[in-house]
């Protein structure tokens, strides 16, 4: 309706660029502001493009498809250090693990906050808790995780040395702490989606004799699919890109080292690395000193993150009909 009012037949909808170009009645301050905004936006695009292009150039220069499928090896010469199959596997495994923990917990927290939220003090406490977790640097979370998971109580989640010293580093423990990184994004996006559903839609479900649980399960969660998908994908992007937790809690071992014994459980109890730590270790800053491998791995990492961002866009942009409020 408001759009109708704006576009009266004689006046074409104004485009901002033309307004700036023609100057018309804009004050000087406004003109400078607009120019600065344009400049900032342009600079950002330039920056993003240069990162991607530089990595593309470097990546294509060094990336050999064989690197993707060979295990990394210890070696002094770059030509003999193998590929980064294990870090890729580690990245995927850790992301799946962290998402598998964060998604149900995050959606659960969001539903509780949005649909129940009682007692109010607890809701407020949970809200601040989520915010604090969101604001905590991942290295702090990692150290905290190490403290927790080295307790003998959690010994079953990682290697245990002789004398029952708990190692505390494994895919399990790293995944658990990684889920904290994804959690706030999932909670936020899900909550936003739930709150965008008008109250009368809930009431319509109640008015058909449904209780709250059925309403959440059958109406509210399906209606929030997009928000949940966006949050989960954003969270995955954070998990893929995090380094500190992998270094501290996954052991950052060159190869995936499952615990002997049960196949899947042993793998999850074992240590490994991800692309981020692989890049770090092989960069001049790390001990590997194999910058070509680092560039190639960084390029793959960038591709994964770009793909995830693209997926977020795809999910969020899909047009879905909505209710009037």
């Amino acid at each position, binding site marked *: 309706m408001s759009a109708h009012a704006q576009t009266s037949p004689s006046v074409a909808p104004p485009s901002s660029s033309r307004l700036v170009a023609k100057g018309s009645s804009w004050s000087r301050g406004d003109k400078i502001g607009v120019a600065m905004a344009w400049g900032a936006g342009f600079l950002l695009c330039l920056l993003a493009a240069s990162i991607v292009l530089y990595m593309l150039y470097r990546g294509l220069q060094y990336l050999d498809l064989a690197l993707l499928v060979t295990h990394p090896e210890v070696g002094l010469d770059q030509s003999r250090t193998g590929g980064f199959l294990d870090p890729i596997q580690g990245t995927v495994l850790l992301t799946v693990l962290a998402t598998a923990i964060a998604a149900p917990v995050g959606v659960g927290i969001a539903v509780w906050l949005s649909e129940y939220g009682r007692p109010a003090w607890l809701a407020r406490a949970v809200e601040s808790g989520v915010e604090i977790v969101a604001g905590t640097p991942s290295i702090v979370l990692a150290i905290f995780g190490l403290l927790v998971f080295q307790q003998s109580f959690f010994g079953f989640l990682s290697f245990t040395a002789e004398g029952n010293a708990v190692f505390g580093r494994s895919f399990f423990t790293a995944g658990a702490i990684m889920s904290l990184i994804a959690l706030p994004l999932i909670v936020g996006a899900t909550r936003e989606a739930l709150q965008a559903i008008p109250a009368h*839609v809930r009431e319509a479900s*109640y008015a*058909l004799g*449904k209780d709250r649980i059925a309403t959440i399960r059958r*109406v509210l969660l*399906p209606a929030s699919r997009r928000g949940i998908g966006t949050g989960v994908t954003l969270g995955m992007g954070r998990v893929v890109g995090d380094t500190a937790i992998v270094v501290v809690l996954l052991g950052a071992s060159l190869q995936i080292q499952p615990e002997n014994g049960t196949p899947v459980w042993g793998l999850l109890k074992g240590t490994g690395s991800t692309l981020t730590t692989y890049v770090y270790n092989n960069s001049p800053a790390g001990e590997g000193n194999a910058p070509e491998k680092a560039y190639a791995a960084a390029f793959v990492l960038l591709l994964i993150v770009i793909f995830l961002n693209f997926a977020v866009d795809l999910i969020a942009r899909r047009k879905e009909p909505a*209710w*009037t409020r």
Partner: protein
Amino acid sequence: MDTLSTLDGDFDRTREPLAVAGQLPPPVRRIAPTGAPTVAEPSPSQGNGHGAHAQPSRSLKRTPRPETTPVERMRTEALSIAYGQKLAVNEVSLSVRQGEVLALIGPSGCGKTTLLRSLNRLVDLTPTAVRGGRILLDGEDVDRFDVTHLRRRVGMLFQQPNPFPMSIFDNVAYGLRERGSKKPSRRSLEPAVSEALHRAGLFEEVKDNLDHPALALSGGQQQRLCIARSLAVRPEVLLLDEPCSALDPISTQVIEETIVSLRSEIAIVIVTHNLQQAQRVADHVAFMYLGDLIEYGEAARVFGSPVAERTREYVSGGFG
């Protein structure tokens, strides 16, 4: 006939409402427990009787309606509802009868929607709401029902069309699913779904697209889908909260016809701001003001020769 002077100015809300009622001529609020309201029965000279021919001054075509024999299904007895300190409905006694459409009219904030939402206990969802008096469904206090059971018997339609984000079929089947432990198959739900769509006058338009998303329908179709969704659970009372306020005139007409055709099987209460609509569809009209039931009577009589001054002002467009 300034019978409502006590309502003017700073109306004292704590006053015993019967004191106000006592000053009014018969047509006010108290309803004999036996059923038929004792209020608002017009003297023979005053009203034109029940039915279609009593045209008020405005030339309005009344929606064609078959004769019915009204039976009381719901009744409120001295129903009061407050949100925190604010009294929204003040000792209202009303009868809701199958075979007729009852329209609740009145200016914004007069309590009509609150009254409507109390009938299926949707008001209970508002944390601050408190309720006094009784609401009876077939003689039984609604508080004694399991609330989900009550809401299946007393359906509701909202101001905005609000189909769920699922297919047309699933929307109509929504209320039928998950009632017991067994999950009904689509095949077993089909007859009920298509019947509900038929009754809501939507079947012909959607019969080939039952799997299409409901939110892709037009506004009017969505609202009729919501009617079908309510009808599928076979309610005995249907509450309509300004069901046409978001719709175009054609859709409005279709829905009004549906409402009138349903009234022989279902007791219908409609809240509307649209007086023309009330005249077209209602058999009885209750006029509310500031939480009080001011006047109740047959539609033609309330619109044609209202007894209370407030009603007269309102139906003639004086305020609201």
